């Protein structure tokens, strides 16, 4: 080796050549984004970092560049596929070439990105949040709330300027059935890194007036860029899951549910779908009312018909019943008469019999019968003699026999 020293530039040039020769291809790498900045020229400068999974200490770091011509395509492609802004803190899989510049040193130039890796990582994070909520026993609390029969007084959490909010209100207002709704806006930021805090603040305001509302609707107009990371946080999910009113989400995205969607009572895709859901819910209430009213009419008239025919039936049966009754009464009467005849006849016979006995006894006691049996009656001067002391010698007495009389003188 030569002894002559190299200039720094010469050395760096050597490093550059060595790197180019030994790492000539483009490589797919997985890393976390950090310190993402883009300037007015449209180029994006950032750092790739890797942390130790256990200790969370940095174990690798590299500067990165995405040139404007690439970044212009890459950023919207990534954000639309993932629903995640291209910002620090997320994990990405990018295709890079390894560069070395004599002045700026080592860096990676991004030429492509694979959003599925980020999606997978986000899904894993969401699963972790949901698991934690489940372990805490709050995951399904909001779903378990009963949606009131009428959901008319609606706390809307949205940004006031968003088209989605306007669409929502207009749709409610113009519902074809003429149902009444009372939406009330609680403004919140629905984009950027203050989403979580802003929505939680709005929820707290609703909670302070929770008796004034039937349900909460969280909506967001579908903007071109869709940064949904704010809806995937533990704190927001925990707040929503435990919120005392049912929450309906319509935060305008097509990808898998956010954590917020997962804990909400009802999840729909867009603000207009949220309005449609509320209208349908009212329509169901109105239909069951209508049904009930119909059933009432039908069953009341059925009941009246039944009473009518009962009455008619009774009316028809009445003459027959009366006739039957008359016949039966007549029969009873006849029976009574008969019994009376019998009783009278028996009574008369008894009396006759007794009379005969009496007559017999009277006959038996008559003086003629005694006279016939040999007894006689003695009279003195027409009076019956019953004691010999009534007589003295020389008295004339008349003795009556059964047949004839004898006159004698007492001695």
């Amino acid at each position: 080796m030569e002894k002559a020293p190299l200039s720094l530039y010469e050395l760096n040039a050597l490093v550059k050549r060595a790197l180019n020769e030994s790492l000539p291809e483009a490589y797919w790498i997985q890393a976390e984004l950090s310190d993402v900045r883009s300037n007015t020229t449209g180029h994006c400068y950032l750092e790739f970092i890797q942390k130790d999974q256990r200790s969370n200490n940095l174990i690798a770091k590299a500067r990165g560049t995405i040139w404007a011509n690439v970044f212009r395509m890459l950023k919207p492609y990534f954000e639309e596929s993932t629903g995640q802004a291209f910002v620090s803190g997320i994990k990405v899989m990018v295709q890079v070439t390894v560069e070395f510049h004599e002045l700026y040193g080592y860096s990676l130039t991004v030429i492509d990105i694979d959003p599925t890796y980020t999606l997978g990582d986000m899904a894993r994070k969401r699963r972790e949040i949901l698991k934690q909520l489940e372990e805490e026993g709050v995951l399904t609390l909001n779903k378990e709330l009963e949606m009131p029969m009428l959901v008319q007084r609606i706390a809307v959490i949205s940004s006031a300027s968003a088209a989605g909010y306007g669409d929502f209100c207009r749709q409610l207002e113009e519902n074809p059935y003429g149902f009444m709704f009372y939406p009330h806006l609680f403004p919140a930021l629905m984009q950027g890194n203050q989403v979580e805090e802003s929505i939680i603040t709005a929820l707290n305001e609703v909670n302070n007036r929770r008796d004034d509302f039937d349900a909460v609707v969280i909506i967001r107009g579908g903007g071109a860029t869709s940064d949904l990371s704010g809806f995937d946080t533990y704190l927001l999910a925990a707040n929503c899951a435990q919120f005392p009113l049912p929450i309906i989400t319509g935060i305008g995205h097509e990808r898998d549910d956010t954590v917020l969607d997962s804990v909400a009572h009802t999840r729909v895709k867009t603000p207009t779908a949220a309005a449609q859901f509320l209208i349908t819910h009212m329509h169901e209430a109105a239909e069951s009312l209508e049904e009930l009213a119909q059933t009432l009419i039908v069953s009341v008239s059925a009941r009246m018909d039944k009473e009518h025919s009962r009455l008619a039936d009774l009316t028809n049966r009445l003459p027959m019943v009366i006739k039957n009754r008359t016949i039966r009464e007549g029969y009873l009467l006849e029976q009574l008469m008969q019994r009376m005849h019998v009783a009278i006849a028996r009574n008369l016979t008894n009396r006759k019999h007794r009379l005969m006995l009496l007559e017999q006894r009277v006959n038996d006691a008559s003086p003629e019968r005694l006279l016939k049996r040999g007894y006689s009656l003695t009279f003195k001067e027409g009076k019956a003699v019953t004691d010999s002391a009534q007589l003295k010698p020389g008295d004339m007495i008349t003795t009556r026999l059964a047949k004839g009389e004898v006159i004698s003188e007492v001695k």
Partner: protein
Amino acid sequence: MAEKKESYAQAMEKLENIVSAVEKDELDIDQLSVKLKEAQKLVRFCKDKLYKADEEIKKIMEGEDN
């Protein structure tokens, strides 16, 4: 307001009870007309809830804004 929210459900429940009493022939004819009147009132109350603006609710909603 919590009461108001309840009363629609309560009205519906009362209505259900009346309808099922009629269906089961549990009411005599004298009661029937009384109950029918009550049911009509309940239906009107429920319909008003659905279709008519409740000034009181409006006031509550707006009152808190100012």
